[in-house]
């Protein structure tokens, strides 16, 4: 379901793919809201007097972005943790997004969810090519991201720009039932944490969204010369 280009594998990216089927994200169970607030308080306390920007995993995201000419674009977990540090809670974004935000904040993995009913596969994580098109979440006109890397479908539609911003076309909403979640880490995030993140999200989705899940992709952050 997810291919990673040799160029990006050489840069130490790690990835995993979890498919969730039959989920119900239309309501947030009180137990999930309580868990979300509890983790939010815990993480806010932990990060209160620590600089996110000095964490090796965060620095690695930034170094990767710089290789592609991108600066001042925080990776998804950094944005989540900045919010949590200010509010001692996560945004209330629906059960599915709440679950993967929790995993992202706890592990520093970047997670993106896409509605399988709207998604063409396989997806490839690779440098952007001239014909690729990206329409960001919440927008209706294309945005240029030449020179960057992205998750791209077989038709050249960018479904996620780096690990920063998803597209409009495959977004999940309360009606989504079958979704795929892409996990992205880097060489500063241990592979066992990648597996633990997948495991945690599978548990949260099955407990709080009534779905079934399956791990269908897992690539470690290793120096590779070829796929």
């Amino acid at each position, binding site marked *: 379901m997810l291919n990673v280009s040799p160029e990006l594998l050489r840069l130490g990216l790690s990835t995993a793919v979890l498919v969730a089927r039959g989920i119900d994200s239309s309501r947030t169970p009180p137990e999930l809201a309580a868990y979300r607030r509890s983790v939010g308080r*815990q*993480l806010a306390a*932990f*990060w209160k007097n*620590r600089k996110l920007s000095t*964490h*090796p995993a965060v620095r690695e995201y930034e170094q990767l972005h710089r290789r592609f000419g991108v600066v001042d674009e925080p990776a998804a977990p950094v944005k989540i943790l900045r919010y949590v540090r200010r509010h001692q809670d996560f945004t209330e974004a629906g059960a599915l997004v709440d679950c993967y935000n929790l995993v992202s904040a*706890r592990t520093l993995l970047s997670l993106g969810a896409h509605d399988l009913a709207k998604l063409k596969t396989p997806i490839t994580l690779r440098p952007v090519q001239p014909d690729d098109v990206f329409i960001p979440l919440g927008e209706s006109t294309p945005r240029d991201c030449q020179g960057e890397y992205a998750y791209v479908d077989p038709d050249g539609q960018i479904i996620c720009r780096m690990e920063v911003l998803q597209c409009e076309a495959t977004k999940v909403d309360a009606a989504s039932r079958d979704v795929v979640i892409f996990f992205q880490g880097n060489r500063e995030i241990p*592979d*066992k944490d*990648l*597996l*633990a993140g*997948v*495991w945690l999200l*599978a*548990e949260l989705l*099955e*407990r709080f969204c009534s779905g*079934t*899940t*399956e*791990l*269908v*992709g*897992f*690539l*470690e952050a*290793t120096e590779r010369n070829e796929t």
Partner: protein
Amino acid sequence: MKPPVDLADFQRLDLHVGTVVAVRPHPNLIDLSILTVQLEEPVEALVPVSTSGLEAGARVVVAVGLHPLQTGGQRFSASVLSGPVVAEIPNGSRLS
């Protein structure tokens, strides 16, 4: 530098010492291995292939009773947390 695991989460873990008796690749995912670990009974545990020191005969700490994770046509409820264990602890001994 990692956020702490709260005590309640840690106390939920069911940790045991065991001996790796077999290692085989995941049928679909080249970067995962499936270990058979002898506790009082054998269990199958899922681990990244880069986890060092997990050949047959290694003694490891296994978390069992995890929420089942479906992959490769199998459901896993165990993962190796650490190894190797050098202390003389019988297989299956509970640590938590």
